[in-house]
């Protein structure tokens, strides 16, 4: 086969793999969220569908698609149907520019661990997330329901307000790295093997950039309508906000979009500030052994608890899970996996840590009042973000 046929074939395979992984992650993120919040509140969480509720997402999907699909007579039908469509398709689109790892060789073919490397990758992600606002705004307006309209208005005002500090803080790491391509962004943070990476090359530790990181995270929480900024669906005043009139899978579409946006924004935080797939310290000092240690420990703990089961049902499920973990640990030791599995591990670990922070905050903080929410975006985050950008510019001009 000639090179261009190879290119299209490899691209299609990559897209299918990434899409499959993304959809699985979306389903299980919900499970992880319910489990983590349950444990924060000292209760077991989903427990009965499969071992430790692991099949709960599947059960939820089956339940949702067999629910009644209401199309109320008073709604604006085209927009009512377009809203969840826009929300989901825009949320799933951003993944196409997110890089997961360095360049690798697959059967002698040289390729990126990324669907495509746009030279305007950052702008692409911002644009897709901006169009996603239409999903929320149209859903609320077309529903012709007072609660939905109020929820949508609040939510769109909130999302556009927080988009300002978000885009201004994104500009600061771009200024340090001097590129809009997400791949080059990581390479300037030490992903390039030429200058072996350590923690201190990350944009987070460049000057006072952690302030920018905090502003980014806060704005990201607001952009994805997560607690403490989930004013759009404040149950005690607005029933369910903009998706009050939606049922069955249309209702679930908005949640899917929210979780997909969470994943995208966490990946963006990792790429912009936390060095992407770069290990925190060079492999010569044993950073390659961290995943082995983590998975081996998890496997041993699971096997131990399986041999001393607290409940009868744990007797088979825990050792099985433990063996899977031990197998993964062994996979990290194999020489041919080093070049791609280790970067993938670090990328997923960092993204996972930020996703965990999303869930942790949901289990910890109460909701904002609306005037405080808007005031916070305009009077605190916006000035801080713009001063941060100028200070970064000054720092780069003076110290390089």
């Amino acid at each position, binding site marked *: 086969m000639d*090179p*261009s046929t190879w*290119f299209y074939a490899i*691209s299609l395979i990559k*897209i299918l793999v990434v*899409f499959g992984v993304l*959809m699985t992650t979306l389903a299980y993120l919900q499970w992880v969220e319910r489990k983590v919040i349950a444990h924060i509140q000292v209760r077991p969480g989903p427990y009965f569908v499969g071992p430790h509720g692991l099949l709960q997402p599947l059960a939820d999907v089956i339940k949702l*698609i*067999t*629910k*009644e*699909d*209401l199309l109320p007579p008073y709604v604006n039908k085209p927009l009512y149907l377009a809203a*969840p*469509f826009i*929300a*989901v*398709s*825009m*949320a*799933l*689109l951003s*993944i196409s*520019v997110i890089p997961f790892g360095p360049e690798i060789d697959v059967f002698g073919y*040289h390729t990126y661990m990324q669907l*495509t490397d*746009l030279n305007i990758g950052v702008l*692409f992600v911002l644009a897709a997330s901006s169009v996603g606002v239409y999903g929320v705004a149209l859903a609320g307006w077309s*529903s*012709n*329901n007072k*609660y939905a*309209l109020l929820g949508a*208005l609040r939510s*769109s*005002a909130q999302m*556009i*307000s927080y*988009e*300002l500090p978000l*885009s201004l803080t994104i*500009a600061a790491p*771009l*200024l340090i790295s*001097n*590129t*809009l391509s997400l791949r080059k962004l990581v390479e300037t943070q030490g992903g390039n093997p030429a200058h072996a990476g350590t923690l201190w090359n990350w944009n987070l530790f460049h000057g006072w950039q952690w302030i920018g990181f905090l502003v980014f995270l806060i704005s990201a929480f607001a952009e994805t309508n997560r607690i403490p900024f989930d004013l759009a669906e404040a149950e005690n005043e607005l*029933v369910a906000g903009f998706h009050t009139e939606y049922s069955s*899978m249309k209702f679930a579409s908005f949640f899917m979009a929210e979780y997909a946006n969470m994943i995208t924004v966490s990946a963006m935080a990792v790429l912009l500030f936390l060095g992407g797939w770069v290990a925190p310290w060079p492999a010569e000092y044993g950073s390659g052994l961290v995943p082995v240690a983590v998975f081996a420990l998890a496997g041993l703990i699971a096997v131990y608890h399986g041999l001393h089961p607290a409940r009868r049902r744990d007797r088979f499920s825990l050792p099985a899970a433990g063996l899977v973990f031990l197998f993964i640990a062994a996979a990290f030791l194999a020489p041919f996996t080093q070049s791609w599995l280790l970067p993938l591990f670090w990328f997923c670990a960092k993204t996972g840590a930020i996703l965990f922070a999303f869930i942790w905050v949901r289990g910890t903080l109460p909701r904002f009042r609306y*005037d405080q929410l*808007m*005031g916070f975006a*305009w*009077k605190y985050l916006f000035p801080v973000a*713009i001063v941060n*950008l*100028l200070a970064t*510019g000054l720092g*780069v*001009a003076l110290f390089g």
Partner: protein
Amino acid sequence: MPNSYTDVYFPVLVQALIAMATAAGLLAVSFLLGKRVRNRVKDMPYESGIVPTGDARHRFSVKFYLVAMLFIVFDMEAIFLYPWVVVYRELNSEMKMFPFVEMAVFVFLILAGFFYIWKKGALDWATSDVAERKR
């Protein structure tokens, strides 16, 4: 390796198609599989069990329009900063400090406008406690 412009955007196109197919599929599958029982009460807008009066096509607070306008003004400025950010190091190596000073002037002008609308009270969502006490 992609070697042309079309190649670079090919995965984006495929991903867009897959994303749209997924979104449409989700809408279609529940339409096909869900059962349908209609009655008069189910066809009313949900307002916590109270019979709704009128529809939701009302006027809403002008503050939402204000936020939208301010967003457009300041987001435009953020977009102006992006090209500057990408070529910053390059410009800096040619002209010492000039790109920084240039943009500092621009940001200063924007911030002047920002503090003006702040003092005018455009950023206060509700009447603030301070203003209330002064009255």
